[in-house]
């Protein structure tokens, strides 16, 4: 049976974020080097997906000028809508921005529990703003709900509590 991967990531509009670019490049690499796998990557139409420019990947058009909360909820909704019809035996891998984590959390209804993973880069709270702290708490909550976390560095892996399934892959350098 053909193995299928669905990968979800937010793609920033203003500047390149290493986390998005590496995520998209990783699945671009996997798709091009594993003909026995079907890889579907879904993101919004930000700067990183333009750099990789894989025409087989699905880009969701958003208005970059929309309100952040609206963009977050709308993108999560569109992720769910696009993934819902996919084969439930597929493996779903999300990056760790809120839209894809929210989508992964809700898609647990459809996908087998063991088939949903998220890739975690770091767990920093980068400033003292209440908004940043709340986003961090929500992110950690959603990572716990997704329950299968794949880490790119061992230090962050040790920091998260061991009630979740933790795996290590390192960070691919292209």
């Amino acid at each position, binding site marked *: 049976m053909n*193995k299928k*991967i669905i990968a979800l990531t937010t793609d920033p509009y*203003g*500047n*390149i974020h*290493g*986390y998005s670019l*590496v995520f998209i*490049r*990783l699945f671009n*690499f*996997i798709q091009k*080097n*594993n003909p026995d*796998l079907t890889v579907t990557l879904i993101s919004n139409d930000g700067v990183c997906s333009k750099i990789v420019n894989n025409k087989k990947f699905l880009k969701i058009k958003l208005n970059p000028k929309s309100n952040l909360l609206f963009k977050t909820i709308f993108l999560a909704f569109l992720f769910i809508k696009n993934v819902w019809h996919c084969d439930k035996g597929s*493996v779903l*891998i999300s990056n760790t921005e809120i839209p894809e984590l929210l989508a992964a959390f809700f898609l647990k209804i459809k996908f087998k529990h063991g*088939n949903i*993973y998220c890739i975690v*880069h*770091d767990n*920093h709270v*980068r400033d003292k703003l209440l908004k940043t702290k709340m986003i961090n708490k929500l992110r950690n909550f959603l990572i716990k709900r997704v329950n299968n976390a*794949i880490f*790119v*560095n*061992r*230090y*962050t892996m040790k920091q998260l509590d061991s009630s979740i399934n933790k*795996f*290590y*892959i*390192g*960070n*691919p*350098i*292209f």
Partner: protein
Amino acid sequence: MKKIYFVGLPVKEKGIEDFSYLAGKIKEAKFYWFCLKLDNSIKNKYKKINFLVGLNDREMKKKISDMDLMACCSRFEGFCLPIAEAILLKKPVISYRLKEVESTYLNNIEYIKCFSLNKYVRGIKKVISNKGLCKDAKKARMFVINNYSPEVVSQRLLKIIF
């Protein structure tokens, strides 16, 4: 004149203030910051830094191959991609001893006690005067290739999920 560089968003979290401080203290070197976009306000604020803006991958590699050292003053990192890119181009790297960076690159780069600017200045001066503090570039490059090449990482991922 030696050339010292960093690649990233020109923001405080990426260490631009510390980088600018180093540029002011170390007269034996020129300091370069690669970024995609730059506001005039940033350019005017950090006049000691030479900004190289909007280069493509090929142009950037060419410029970096001409550099002597990468100084990462970043305060928050998951893995710091520019460090790996510098290692692959056999450039020596100095960074603050952030736990994430140390767990990623182990002893293949030089570390400075977190946010100690005086130690950073001394560390850079040692490297550019060839008086020590310089890891084996070939060994570091092999470390990155063996641990973080796309082939290795993708195989690890596929092993986990299937």
